[in-house]
């Protein structure tokens, strides 16, 4: 890819969220990758943000949600009653 099509730091940073969340096109992702390879400052910032997202996600997923006793059965009973109507 020609250097003329490379992203500036500002352009890359504008795509930070979409890049980390894989919500952009393959072409844009490639352009961000190219920028990060040559820009240590942006690469540090992107790594930090990715680390925050990863950490927050991991912590929240450690929290186990326990269904209240009987809820599953009440739901199934309601469905059964509805299906029998």
């Amino acid at each position, binding site marked *: 890819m020609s250097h003329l099509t490379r992203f500036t730091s500002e352009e890359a940073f504008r795509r930070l*969220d979409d890049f980390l969340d894989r919500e952009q096109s393959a072409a844009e992702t490639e352009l961000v990758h190219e920028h990060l390879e040559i820009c240590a400052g942006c690469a540090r910032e992107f790594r930090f943000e990715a680390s925050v997202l990863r950490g927050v996600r991991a912590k*929240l997923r450690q929290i186990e949600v326990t269904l209240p006793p*009987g809820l599953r*059965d009440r739901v199934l009973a309601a469905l059964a009653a509805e299906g029998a109507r």
Partner: protein
Amino acid sequence: MTESTDRSTASPVAPAEVGGLAPGGFEPLLLAVLSPAFGYALRLARNRADAEDLVQDASLLAFRAAHTFEPGTNFKAWFFQILTRCFYARHRRQQRRPTTVDLEDTPDLYLYSRSAAAGLPWEGEDPASLLIDRLGSERVEAAIEQLPEEYGTVCALYFTEDFAYHEIAAVLGIPVGTVRSRLHRGRKMLQKVLWHVAEEAGIVRDLAHREERP
């Protein structure tokens, strides 16, 4: 407990009632998402009794609307959408969360710049892990609870359920662009709250001292 009698042998879902789903296909899909749905209902309703009612009502509504579910799409997102509508049909007024931090105009890279300034790790492959590990699950969850409702809900769906932007948009009935902007602001706000919590808990000070030691 009598309500579970014969549950394993008699599916309530008759083949003709489930649209594109295979006969008996609704119940297993629902049961697989019941726990995360209760977690989400708890975030919305903020008390266990209302959350239970919400899950039960949403289950019944989903059952009645099963013919509108497209097999091959994300059942959890579809069910969460029904649950969300169910909640807002009852609770029109949005509940303001108890925010203790001024979240207006939070700059980008808040944790990054604060960490660097305070002498905490800000480089390396996983630079924020030390801080977030020390914060722990409960404080991180409580930090999301402090975000204004519209940002907290989007962040919760994003972080805990792994929904894509378009799925969050469908769940909440808002445009994808709104999800994107709320998530962007919500993440920044969350970083500010996390930093505030880490300071209050003495974590910033501890980690800074630890970094100073040879």
